């Protein structure tokens, strides 16, 4: 069995890679991209700043590379095995990488003589980064900031070149050099060359010259930064065991980096860590409730098959299932939470706003008034959302239990047990129920991953920020990093759920073996 489990766990990795590849490609193909999400918030802006912003975003998130390169880069980031120069970790815990490379401006070489494009500069040899950690930090920070400014200036200059190329194309009837959304088709320019007679040509040349100067300056500060980086101002990010770095040649082990969410600029891991416990809380409370209520209900319906208990219970459960969660949530809010009606439950959130001042456990304070305590407060807040999550699950579980048990009531071994003299209660619980577990385990395998995708509707109505809303928001915002991390998480949990279900099958039914 252990070999089986290990094999299954190892199979998770290629499955997840496949899923992430698919999702990545789908997002890449979908219209808009991140630029759209961020720009949609910004409102109307002048042309020049729009172009700059877009270029800036593309640069920051590496969106101008081909999709496959972006995918492989992402994959490299999330894998613990890393190649090449290790990153470093600064005192605040952020990862510091080697400075990014600079691309040439568009069509460099076409408007001035060959060989005038400056080459990459070698980093200076002797670089003083200071003695103490404090000094090293300051040196690096200054160098990083300088490079960032030069880089932005260079990007701005590149954008100017592009604008000039666009004006040239429009003025000279070269509409075919532009895509529908005004992107440049550079090979058209390469093919047709430039006619110096047109006035716009001079603009291209001047913008190009400025951009090359900006490139030179940017390259200089990059070389400086590279030198500072190579002098190792910070400790390396490689994992260590007892002080020995886990490194073998070009390969080393370091913490996987799930990236930064575009829409909020926060690390994806932080967002997940914020939302996951909420969803887990809701579901860990909901799960046992569903099972504890639905399974005995199903058992009772099976034992008393055909009587009014069976019919009534079945009808009730199906009726509950038919009520859409949206409506149920609103009803619960209006009738149970609003002070105009019953007002028994809170309207939103997970905690009372003053909960940080509350004690954890309930107690009676000086005047004998009962104080709720933070733990019970959370349960009180969670009561309505959990009820909305739970009632739909009753139907499936109760009906399945009933059906499985009815099947097993007619089994031969029940007859044998009766013939041995086993009491009917023991027959039901020990013999029949034990054999009816398999469908319940199957349901568990599907419910368990559903736990983590959460229930968007319940979370929206009760203003609880959980995984469901996170996934939905990441999709709406086309937030690629967050979406991929979510996909990995959901996929991983799904696979894990299936594995647990398989293990439970083996435990529940001795006929099943994985040897």
């Amino acid at each position, binding site marked *: 069995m252990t070999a089986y489990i290990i094999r299954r766990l190892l199979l998770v990795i290629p499955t997840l890679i496949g899923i992430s590849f698919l999702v990545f490609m789908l997002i890449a193909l979908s219209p808009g991209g991140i630029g759209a999400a961020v720009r949609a918030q910004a409102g109307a802006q002048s042309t020049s700043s729009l172009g700059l912003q877009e270029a800036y975003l593309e640069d920051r998130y590496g969106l101008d590379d081909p999709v496959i390169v972006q995918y492989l880069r992402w994959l490299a980031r999330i894998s613990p095995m890393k190649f090449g120069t290790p990153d470093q970790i600064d005192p605040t815990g952020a990862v510091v990488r080697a400075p990014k490379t600079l691309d040439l401006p568009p069509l460099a070489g076409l408007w001035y003589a060959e060989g005038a494009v400056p080459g990459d500069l070698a980093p200076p040899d002797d670089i003083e980064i200071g003695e103490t950690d404090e000094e090293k930090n300051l040196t690096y920070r200054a160098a990083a900031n300088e490079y960032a400014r030069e880089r932005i200036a260079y990007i701005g200059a590149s954008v100017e070149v592009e604008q000039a190329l666009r004006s040239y194309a429009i003025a000279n009837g070269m509409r075919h050099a532009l895509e529908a959304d005004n992107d440049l088709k550079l090979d058209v320019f390469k093919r047709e060359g430039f006619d110096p007679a047109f006035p716009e040509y001079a603009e291209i040349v001047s913008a190009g010259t400025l951009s090359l100067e900006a490139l030179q300056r940017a390259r200089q500060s990059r070389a400086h930064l590279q030198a500072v980086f190579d002098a190792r101002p910070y400790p390396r990010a490689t994992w260590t065991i007892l002080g020995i770095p886990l490194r073998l040649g070009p390969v080393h082990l370091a913490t996987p980096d799930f990236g930064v969410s575009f829409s909020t600029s926060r690390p994806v891991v932080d967002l997940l860590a914020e939302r996951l416990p909420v969803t887990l809380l809701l579901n860990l409370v909901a799960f046992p409730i569903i099972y504890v209520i639905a399974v005995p209900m199903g058992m009772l319906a099976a034992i008393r098959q055909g009587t009014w208990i069976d019919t009534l219970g079945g009808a009730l459960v199906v009726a509950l299932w038919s009520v859409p969660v949206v409506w149920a949530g609103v009803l619960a809010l209006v009738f149970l939470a609003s002070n105009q009606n019953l007002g028994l439950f809170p309207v939103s959130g997970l905690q009372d706003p003053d909960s940080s001042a509350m004690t954890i456990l309930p107690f009676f304070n000086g005047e004998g008034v009962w104080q709720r305590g933070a733990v019970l407060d959370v349960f009180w807040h969670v009561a309505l959302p959990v009820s909305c999550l739970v009632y739909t699950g009753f139907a499936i579980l109760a009906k399945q239990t009933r059906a499985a048990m009815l099947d097993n009531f007619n089994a031969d071994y029940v007859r*044998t047990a009766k013939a041995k*003299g086993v009491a009917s209660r023991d027959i039901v619980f020990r013999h029949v129920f034990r054999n009816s577990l398999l469908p319940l385990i199957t349901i568990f395998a599907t419910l368990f991953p559903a736990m983590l995708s959460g229930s968007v509707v319940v979370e929206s109505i009760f203003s609880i920020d959980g995984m469901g809303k996170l996934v939905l928001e990441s999709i709406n915002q086309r937030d690629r990093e967050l979406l991929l991390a979510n996909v990995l998480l959901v996929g991983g949990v799904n696979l894990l759920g299936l594995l647990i279900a398989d293990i439970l099958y083996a435990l529940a039914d*001795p*006929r099943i073996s994985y040897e």
Partner: protein
Amino acid sequence: MVVDDLAVSFDNAGGPRIQAVDGVRMSVHPRQTLAVVGESGCGKSVTAMSSMQLIPRPPGRFDRGEIRFARKDGSRTDLLTLSEKEMREVRGAEIAMIFQEPMTSLNPVYTIGDQIVEAIRLHQEVKVTEARDIAVRAMDDVGIPDPAARLSAYPHQFSGGMRQRVMIAMALACQPRLLLADEPTTALDVTIQAQILELLRDLQAQRDMGVMLITHALGVVAENADVVCVMYAGRVVEYATVLELFDNPMHPYTRGLLRSIPKLGERADRLTTIKQIVDNEDEFRQLPRADDGVRPWWPWHDPPEDLVPNEGPAGEYALHRVANDHWVGLWRTEAVGSERQDAPDLQYRLADDPNAPSRTATVKTVA
């Protein structure tokens, strides 16, 4: 155990009640094997299961009758009147039953050790370790090799024959007085069949146990039965000792059964069918005193003109002693009389009979 005028009927949704058993009488004595023979649906399983109240009620219902049983403590009770709680004490401890399908008759999720121990601990106040010892001994008795190790094995790890042995071990673990075996070997192959039946015979001899063997195979009857009860359509049509039955079958149905077995050495183009025989009116006039109106009862014939039905249900039918050690199911005509009959009671055991030929001879008679 004596079954006296048992009638069991079942609910039929949307139609009249189905009478599964109507006026059955038979008896089993210690160290005696009563074979109940008949085709599928004749009511033999229902009779056996009624004695342990294993018929689900509803839809089943005991219309009338008694099943008198002599318990270990000496008392005689009517099994049909016992409450569920009292019945549970009887089941397994006094009467045990084994079933046809050993594949599915054992609970697949528990080890056989668990299941046998469960059977033991239901009726005996013993600790788990003692119960396991008893279980090991029971398995040993039925011939399961290495029983101590097999205690923690699951049913699916056994072959069919082994499983039936386990069933028998489980059934006999509490030393019941009566074993009801409902077609125990029908699902097994022939060699295993012989082993199991031999096992049953040995155990019966060791423990003074009565066995009601339900089967539809006459070969099995010939090899194992002391007394035979032939049933058809919920009623007993013939009841005799085994030698008597095979030598002198009186009811046409029995004759049909016996004659429809192909015999080694006999050449024929067509097999004799039961229908051929029971459709033949002449066959029904072969009984002694046939002219007085003694006719074998047959549901597909019209009742004779001189029928004098009794008051009450099954009034047109009577199980009447026609000869020594031989009962036949008859139409209740004047000749038969209108009194109520008693259950046939034969204390016969072939093993004890000095005059009986060996079993193999009986077998030759049949095949």
